[in-house]
């Protein structure tokens, strides 16, 4: 039993990574969006480093959120259309494990690249040097929360033809705590305050999401797949 749940996780993880690799252009679009918008900000707001530094943390987080929101909608869409999702639902494995594999693949192809690209954006937005390490940590945890909670919304709206807006409305409130403590982590560090407490809360949010979201996604898919 343990072995079969395990193989479900890795089989779906590998497959989704392979799919993302085959469609690199599509998979890279959130990252390109993230980088493009942040090059525009100094142009349209102000190139003054001191003033940019004040808003840098918030801007980076808003862009990370929007970039994830763009990609999370497609998480189950193609599997739903081609019947793979149905095969998953009737497989003897425990449903949350393969789903966690899919979500992990989503984070590895969106959240992780965003996190790794963020120092570049920090540079463009004149983020003070003390903010870089907290930014990397908080983005890594926060984008994982985005993928996990976003998957619940994606599962609930998968059978709707135009679920994009509804998905945003559903998951936005769940993204609020993440974005609040994420920006707090960076701005505390810039202000020279201990930035570990807000990061710890992000960690707690992540732990709760890992434990609960796959179960919620499984339940949501069982409901929506009826149609």
């Amino acid at each position, binding site marked *: 039993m343990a*072995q*079969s749940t395990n*193989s*479900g996780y890795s*089989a*779906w993880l*590998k*497959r989704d990574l*392979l*799919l993302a690799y*085959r*469609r690199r252009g599509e998979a890279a679009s959130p990252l390109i969006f993230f980088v493009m918008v942040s090059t525009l900000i100094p142009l349209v707001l102000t190139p003054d480093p001191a003033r940019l530094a004040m808003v840098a943390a918030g801007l980076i987080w808003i862009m990370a959120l929007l970039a994830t929101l763009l990609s999370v909608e497609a998480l189950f869409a*193609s599997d739903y*259309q*081609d*019947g*793979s999702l*149905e*095969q*998953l*639902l*009737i*497989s*003897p*494995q425990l449903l949350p494990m*393969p789903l966690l594999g899919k979500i992990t693949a989503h984070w590895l192809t969106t959240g992780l690249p965003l996190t790794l690209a963020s120092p570049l954006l920090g540079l463009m937005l004149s983020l003070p040097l003390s903010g870089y390490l907290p930014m990397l940590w908080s983005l890594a945890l926060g984008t994982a929360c985005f993928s996990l909670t976003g998957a619940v919304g994606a599962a609930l709206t998968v059978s709707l033809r135009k679920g994009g807006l509804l998905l945003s409305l559903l998951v936005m409130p769940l993204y609020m705590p993440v974005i609040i403590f994420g920006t707090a982590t960076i701005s505390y560090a810039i202000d020279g305050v201990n930035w570990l407490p807000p990061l710890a809360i992000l960690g707690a949010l992540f732990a709760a999401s890992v434990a609960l979201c796959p179960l919620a996604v499984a339940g949501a898919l069982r409901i929506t*797949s*009826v*149609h």
Partner: protein
Amino acid sequence: MSQSPLLKVDRLAFERDDNCLLDKINLSLNPGEIVQVEGANGSGKTTLLRLLTTALQPSAGEILYKGQALTECRYQYLSDMLYIGHQPAVKSTLTAEENLRWMVNTDGGVKCADKTNSYVIAGALAAVGLNGYTDVPCYALSAGQHRRVALARLMMTAATLWYLDEPFTAIDKQGVSFLEDRLRQHLSQGGAVVLTSHQDLTLENVRTYSLNPQAGQTA
């Protein structure tokens, strides 16, 4: 007590939005038996198969597997079942081999003994006439070849119960006769099949099950 059948469907009903799609479905299936579900378009053939696979929950009635209710033997039942639906679950950006490998991997290792061996996978693809197409991305394949990728699962599975929804769609004559051979072999090994098809099968002892066309029309 007489031996309980492999699968017994007892007064199964399914409603959607107060619309009764299927009602009083009774069916019993023993090892070595094949049932062809017949009915007009929209009479609920696919719905019936999806009910049998537990993808849909019936609104009344129950399914018994070897005499046990599914709530008691869900894992065994799902491990012993193979379903190929209307949509063949073939990813067009993956190659035939990658698709098949993924499909048998997600079967949880219970339905297939030798799942990681690429010779076995290549053999299964060759058996369905996709020899030389193993490394071709599936978007370059025709509709019938797509279907054959999904049907290659039949070569690798150890499941007893097969639910096949329109398996002959887009398949050429040669493919049909191959598929019938495979079904014959499966039945002789004690397997059981429920399939939907508008085609007349050349298999022996096919029982047909007609769905009542009025059932889908009650408002």
